[in-house]
C-alpha cells in the first residue's frame, strides 16, 4: 500500500485512470483508511473543478471591432467542400467508437446466422449453389469492411490487436458458414477459393482502402 507521501505523488495517475488494477486497489485501500488523504484527493478534485470554471474576461471593444472589420473584408467563403460527407463519416465513426467493436461482432454473428438459415436452402431465385456462393461472398465482404475500418483507425486508438480480432471474427464466421450451410463445403478447391482466397482478398482490400485519400488519416503537418 502506498504511504501518504507516495499517494500525493501518484494522485494524477489515479485521476487520469493510468494505474494498473493492483495499484488502483491499493490506492483505494489507503484512501479507505486515511481521511487525510481523502481530504487531499477532494482538494485536488476541487482544484481541477475550480480551474474549469475560471470566468472569461470581456474582450476590449476596440479589439472586437477591429476583428469584425477584418472579418468583413476577408469574408471567408466558399462551400465547405467535404462537410456533408465528413459529417456523415464522422457521425458513423463516432457511433462505431461509442458502441465499440461489439457491434461489429454482432453484425457479423447476425450475418452468419442469416447465412446458415439461407445459404444451404434452394430458393426461387437461384439454385442452391449460386445462393450459397452469394451469401458466402456477402459474409466475406463484412470482414473486408471491418478490416478497412480498422486500418483507417490504426493511427489512433485501435491497436493491432483489434485489427487481428476483426479479421479473426470474419474468418471464423466465414468458416462456420462454410461448414454449416454450403453443401459443397467439403470440396477442397472450393474451400481454398472461398476461405483462403476470401481472407487474402479481405487483407488486400483493407490495405487498399487505407490508402484512399478520403479515408486516410491526415498526415501530421503544420500550418493552418
Amino acid at each position: 500500500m502506498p504511504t501518504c507521501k507516495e499517494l500525493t505523488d501518484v494522485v494524477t495517475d489515479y485521476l487520469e485512470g493510468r494505474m494498473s488494477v493492483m495499484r488502483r486497489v491499493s490506492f483505494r485501500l489507503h484512501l479507505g483508511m486515511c481521511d487525510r488523504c481523502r481530504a487531499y484527493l477532494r482538494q485536488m478534485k476541487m482544484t481541477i473543478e475550480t480551474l474549469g470554471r475560471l470566468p472569461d474576461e470581456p474582450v476590449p471593444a476596440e479589439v472586437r471591432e477591429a476583428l469584425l472589420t477584418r472579418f468583413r473584408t476577408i469574408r471567408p467563403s466558399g462551400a465547405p467542400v467535404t462537410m456533408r460527407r465528413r459529417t456523415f463519416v464522422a457521425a458513423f465513426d463516432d457511433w462505431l467508437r461509442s458502441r465499440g467493436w461489439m457491434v461489429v461482432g454482432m453484425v457479423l454473428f447476425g450475418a452468419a446466422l442469416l447465412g446458415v438459415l439461407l445459404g444451404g436452402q434452394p430458393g426461387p431465385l437461384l439454385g442452391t449453389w449460386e445462393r450459397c456462393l452469394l451469401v458466402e461472398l456477402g459474409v466475406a465482404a463484412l470482414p473486408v469492411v471491418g478490416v478497412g475500418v480498422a486500418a483507417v483507425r490504426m493511427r489512433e486508438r485501435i491497436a493491432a490487436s483489434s485489427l487481428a480480432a476483426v479479421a479473426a471474427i470474419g474468418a471464423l464466421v466465414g468458416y462456420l458458414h462454410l461448414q454449416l450451410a454450403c453443401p459443397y463445403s467439403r470440396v477442397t478447391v472450393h474451400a481454398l477459393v472461398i476461405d483462403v482466397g476470401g481472407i487474402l482478398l479481405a487483407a488486400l482490400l483493407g490495405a487498399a482502402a487505407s490508402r484512399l485519400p478520403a479515408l486516410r488519416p491526415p498526415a501530421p503537418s503544420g500550418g493552418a
Partner: protein
Amino acid sequence: MDEKTAGPRASGEDFALVQRLLAGDEIAFAGLVDRYHNRLLRLAMNFVSDRSAAEEVVQDTWLGVMSGLPSFEGRSALKTWIFRILINRAKTRGVREARSMPFSALENPDSEHEPAVNPARFQPNGMWADPPHRWDDETPEKLLMRQDALRRLKEAMARLPPSQRAVLTLRDVEGLDAGEVCNILEISETNQRVLLHRARSKIRHALEEYLGGV
C-alpha cells in the same frame, strides 16, 4: 489543415457555426471572438515572451481561423482546431524570436523528481505530519466569487513554468482531453501527465495556502 483525430470530433453545433461563418454571419463571428479571444490570449502568453507578442499571435490566429474555415473538416472539435492554429502560430513565432518559451521544456520535463507536496509535511515513515488544511465547505462557485481568491489563483498559475501552465490551461481550464493536448503540443502522454501533475499540485497548494493559511 492539420486535423488529427484524437479526442472528440466536431459537434453538429460546431458545423452549424462554421456554416454561419462561411455565410459571412458577423454575429456568429463576434460570438466566436467573445468566447475565445481572451482564452487564446491566455494560452498564447505561455509561449511568447510578452503580452504584445501574445496579442500578435492571437491576431495571426484569427486570420488563420478565417482563412482556414473553408477547409475545416470537423475531425476535431472547433475549439481544439482553433487552439491548434494558435499553437502552430506561437511556435512559428517562437522560432523566429528564439527567446520565447523553450518548446523543448515540453519534451523534457525535468527528469528530476518534483514532489507534489513539500516533503517536510510528512513524517519519516511517509505519513502526514502536517495534513492538508481542510476547506471542505468551499465550492468552486463560492471560491471564484471572491476577487482575492481569483487573484491568488491567477498568481499561482502565473508562477508555473510555461510548459506546466500550457498543459494545465489546455487540460483543466479549457477542458481538452489528454490525447488532444498531447497532439496539439506534440508531447508524449507521460510528459503530459507529469506536467499536469506538477501544475495541479502547485495550484492545490496555493489554494490551501489561501484558504487554510499554511
